[in-house]
């Protein structure tokens, strides 16, 4: 009798806790997740354009002639490990360890910048070989899709520097932690888009 009463009471309490207002961090993450999904829908339009135009090389160079898979593998690893260090940075921030966060954030920035450097070097090399965006519909679609991903990485790097400055200036208070959560979501989502780029553009392009 006593046990069941306590059980019923604790069940009621648990129910009240679960049906109360969601914590701000959950609501903020949900809102930012909606933005990321809309961004991914935008990328899907660029992916569709690339998939439709990939064969239209207009007598110009094809993907198999242009793509260097070693370079692509290096880029993929840079972005993947930067996702990992970004995650560890977010973890350090949650554990209120600002020095560790700054260390991991710096590593994330260096790896992201290395990715961007390799990508720009690839673009410059292609343009020098006469494979500029204006050469064919395939190359227009290629530069738009991959360049849009690179633009997102650039925005992410600027955001990361801004977040590091906020942690230094304001400390790891709740509002800063929520912004960091949004940054983490953004950075990991970029890696997901890159998996699509790597597979559909490069690995299938060399077949």
């Amino acid at each position, binding site marked *: 009798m006593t046990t069941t009463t306590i059980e019923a009471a604790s069940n009621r309490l648990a129910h009240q806790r679960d049906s109360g207002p969601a914590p701000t961090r959950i609501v903020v993450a949900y809102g930012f997740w909606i933005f990321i999904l809309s961004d991914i829908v935008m990328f899907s339009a660029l992916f569709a354009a690339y998939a439709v135009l990939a064969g239209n090389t207009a007598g110009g160079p094809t993907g198999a002639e242009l793509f260097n898979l070693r370079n692509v*593998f290096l880029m993929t690893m840079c972005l993947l490990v930067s996702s990992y260090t970004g995650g560890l940075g977010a973890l350090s921030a949650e554990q209120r360890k600002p020095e560790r966060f700054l260390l991991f954030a710096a590593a994330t920035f260096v790896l992201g910048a290395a990715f961007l450097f390799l990508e720009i070097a690839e673009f410059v090399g292609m343009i020098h070989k006469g494979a500029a965006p204006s050469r064919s519909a395939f190359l227009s679609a290629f530069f738009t899709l991959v360049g849009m991903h690179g633009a997102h990485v650039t925005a992410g790097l600027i955001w990361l520097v801004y977040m590091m400055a906020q942690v230094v200036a304001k400390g790891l208070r709740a509002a800063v932690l929520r912004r960091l959560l949004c940054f983490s979501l953004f950075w990991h989502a970029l890696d997901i888009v890159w998996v699509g780029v790597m597979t559909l553009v490069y690995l299938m392009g060399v077949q």
Partner: protein
Amino acid sequence: MDGNGYLPEDRSPGVEERESTATVASYTAGLGLAILATIGSFVVAQTSLLWPPGIPVGLIVLALAQIGVHLVFFLHLGSGPDNTNNILALAFGVLIVFLVIGGSLWIVDNLSTNMMPGPIN
């Protein structure tokens, strides 16, 4: 009950009460699985051991597996009650992505099949 020490009713709306479930181990496991899937993709794309028409299918399967690893280990999209809305939004996003990509390919393929042979080709 959880060991917060205060009654659930004491919580004011919007207070951060729960930290994320991420650990160094879960991030490391995610990194390991993602690297495996990436290396797998590059091997599948360059090997001569596989039947060539099957390679794109293998690449797509590996890419979907890696996206799943990223969602679970890096974005922490799980089956918890806090994630229900996130999962529903993701399902809607995936629907739109498939409609846009699949629909474009379908329509354009249909168009080029029915195109009159032009002087260029």
